[in-house]
C-alpha cells in the first residue's frame, strides 16, 4: 500500500513526532511504500540542520536523513510554513544575506501542491500532530 504522511508537530512539542517516525519505519519495514512525507505547521522544525539536542535525546533531522539514505523517501517541507519560521533553503538564504541554508540532508522545500499530489497518489493519507 502507498502512504502519504503529513507531520504537523515539532520534534520537541509533543510525542506525535516520534509516533510519526515509528509509524513510517514500520510501514517501510512491512514492505509498503511512502510516496511522500510532507512537513507542515510546526512539523517544519524536523528539517533544521542545526538542531543540536543533547546526545542522549532523539535528533529528528538526523533520524529522517538516515531513513532517506535507507529507503529513498521524499521529504518535503512546506515553503510558506518554513519561511514563516525562519527555515530557509540555500537560494533563499543567500537572497536575504544569510551565510547558508538551514535544511538538513535529504529534505527539500516545496509548496502545498506537493501535498495535494501526494494525497491523490496515495492509497492512505495519515496526518500526525
Amino acid at each position, binding site marked *: 500500500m502507498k502512504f502519504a504522511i*503529513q507531520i504537523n508537530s515539532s520534534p520537541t512539542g509533543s510525542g506525535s513526532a516520534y509516533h510519526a517516525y515509528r509509524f513510517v519505519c514500520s510501514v517501510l519495514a512491512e514492505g509498503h511504500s511512502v510516496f511522500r512525507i510532507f512537513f*507542515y*505547521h510546526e512539523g517544519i522544525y524536523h528539517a533544521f540542520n542545526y538542531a543540536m539536542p543533547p546526545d542522549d535525546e532523539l535528533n529528528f533531522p538526523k533520524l529522517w536523513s538516515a531513513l532517506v539514505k535507507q529507503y529513498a523517501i521524499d521529504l518535503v517541507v512546506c515553503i*510558506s*510554513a518554513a519561511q*514563516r519560521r525562519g527555515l530557509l533553503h540555500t537560494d533563499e538564504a543567500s537572497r536575504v544575506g544569510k551565510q547558508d541554508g538551514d535544511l538538513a540532508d535529504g529534505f527539500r522545500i516545496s*509548496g*502545498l*501542491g506537493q*501535498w*495535494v499530489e501526494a*494525497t*491523490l497518489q496515495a492509497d492512505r*493519507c495519515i*496526518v500526525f500532530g
Partner: protein
Amino acid sequence: MHKKFLFVLRKPPFNGVSMQETLDSVLTIAAFDQAVSLLLLDDGVFQLKNGQQPDRFGMKDTAAVFGALEIYDIHDIRVEVESLQERGLKPRDLCLPVREIYRKDVAGYMKEFDVVLAG
C-alpha cells in the same frame, strides 16, 4: 484524478497561525479542482463565531477566509449540533449559513470521503 476531501476542524481560532495554515491547505486542495468539505467540531465551531475582532490582538481575520470559500466551490460546511450546544451557541451566532450534523451521524458522514484530514 479526483478525490473527496473532508477537513475536520476542531481547534478554536487565533491558536497561533494554525488556522491560517490549515485554510491555506484547504484552498490549495480546492484550487486543484478537488471536492472539499469542512466539518467543525468541538472548539472548531468558534471559527465561525460572529463579531470577532482579531485586529485588536494582532491576528488575521480567519473567519473572513471562511466567507470566501464559496469562490473556491467549497459549499459544504457542517457544524456539529452538540458542539454548538455545549458552548452555548446557536446557528444564528455564526457568520455563515452552515448545515448542522448530529454527533451520531458524524462517523457515517466521514465514510463518504476518500481523504479525511485533521486541521
